[in-house]
């Protein structure tokens, strides 16, 4: 016993209104609902009763949880990489800056080579990593977190 096109649309509308908006998961859940309802229709229930039972089985709160869990699973790896990037760029920018200062002091004391140029190169590299690596990564991470909190 299969469900009519209009009834399939009604199921999809329920899923979308409950906050599910990942197309692939909407298709999965729509088919899941249809299967549950078809089982109930075979048992002699009307579509309305079967759909009401299915909604009790998977209420809007559960649908929102499916949405947020799926997003979590799909983005957790990139989030970890993002945080790693923030820590690494922070480390290298500080490391290069401090290294420039140490080498400069050492060379001045020993009277060897172009101390000022080496310090300039290392500290500039440190600032470049800070300005074009650390800060953009930090701001984009903060922005994504802010948007996620707004959508939650």
């Amino acid at each position: 016993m299969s469900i009519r096109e209009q009834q399939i649309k009604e199921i999809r509308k329920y899923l979308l209104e409950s906050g599910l908006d990942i197309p692939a998961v909407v298709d999965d859940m729509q088919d899941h609902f249809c299967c549950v309802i078809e089982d109930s229709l075979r048992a002699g229930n009307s579509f309305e009763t079967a759909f009401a039972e299915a909604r009790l089985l998977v209420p809007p709160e559960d649908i929102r949880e499916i949405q947020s869990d799926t997003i979590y699973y799909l983005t957790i790896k990139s989030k970890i990489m993002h945080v790693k990037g923030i820590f690494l760029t922070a480390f290298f920018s500080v490391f290069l800056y401090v290294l420039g200062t140490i080498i400069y002091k050492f060379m001045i004391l020993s009277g060897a080579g172009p101390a000022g140029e080496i310090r300039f190169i290392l500290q500039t590299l440190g600032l470049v990593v800070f300005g074009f690596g650390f800060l953009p990564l930090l701001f984009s991470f903060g922005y994504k977190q802010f948007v996620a909190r707004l959508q939650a």
Partner: protein
Amino acid sequence: MYSKELLKGTLKPILLKLLSDRGAMYGYEIVQAVKQMSLGKIVIKEGSLYPLLHALLAEGILETESRKVDGRTRKYYALSKKGKTETVSALGELEDFMSTIKLILTTKPTTQL
């Protein structure tokens, strides 16, 4: 029915084993198969199944094929090449874990640590 906490870590190997034995399956079919095989003791909730299926899909462990069935899209999930390798290691780990748990539960204390 077993608690959610107990099922949490075992869902992935159960899913991989099922797909390895039966080939491509869709979500509702997976839920029903596990329920039937476990004599109703394991009922996979939609909230656990679909996020996991999509995570495994993103990791390249599963692949999908969409088919039109009675006016709607049905997605069949199957193991990819990477998924077949992953299944062997996931099942091996689960079996090892189960024997360790059994060991803990059946070993009688002899000496005090």
